[in-house]
């Protein structure tokens, strides 16, 4: 509850300050809005820690290889960072650069995901008996 109040307060304050600065000092208004966005994400991202830790513990219990879980977490965090930087860029007023960042992130994530998909394919081939 405390975090939600903090996030809503930061949102309203950031919007008000950005509005105050918008007419006289546009760059500062944009940076103020960006700082508010970063503060919101900083307040929220700590809440992810127990979920990620639980996921790791669960994967250990299921006997999954730790390598795969690390890879999945890496892909997840890469997606998070790409989306975050694209939104920050859009906030600062450059839409085209944000789109390019998203596109580059998609290519990167595709490159990171395809080995995992191929591994699943290998497992499937092993499950289906040969010649069936």
């Amino acid at each position, binding site marked *: 509850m405390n975090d939600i109040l903090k996030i809503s307060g930061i949102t309203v304050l950031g919007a008000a300050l950005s509005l105050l600065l918008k007419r006289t*000092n546009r760059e500062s208004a944009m*940076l*103020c809005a960006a700082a508010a966005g970063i503060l919101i994400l900083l307040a929220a*991202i700590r809440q992810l820690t127990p979920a990620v830790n639980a996921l790791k513990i669960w994967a250990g219990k299921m006997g999954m290889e730790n390598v795969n879980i*690390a890879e999945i*977490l890496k892909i997840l965090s890469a997606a998070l960072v790409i989306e975050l930087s694209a939104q920050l860029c859009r906030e600062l007023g450059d839409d085209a650069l944000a789109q390019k960042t998203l596109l580059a992130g998609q290519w990167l994530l595709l490159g990171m995901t395809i080995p995992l998909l191929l591994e699943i394919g290998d497992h499937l081939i092993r499950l289906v008996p040969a010649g069936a």
Partner: protein
Amino acid sequence: MQVQILLQIAGIGLLVTVISQILNKAGREDLSTLTAIAGLVIVLVMVVRMVGQLLNDVQTIFHLS
């Protein structure tokens, strides 16, 4: 630290606006431009530091370091 930094950024923005308008009225456009650039750089450094902290947090939360 959380909310103060937002107020700091807004305060720097307001201060820079006032100073550069005064300098403009006094006929020192060059100094006014320099003031605006200095304010922008200060705010940018603060924002970049926050972005770095956020990325660090992502790295520690996902056990990537």
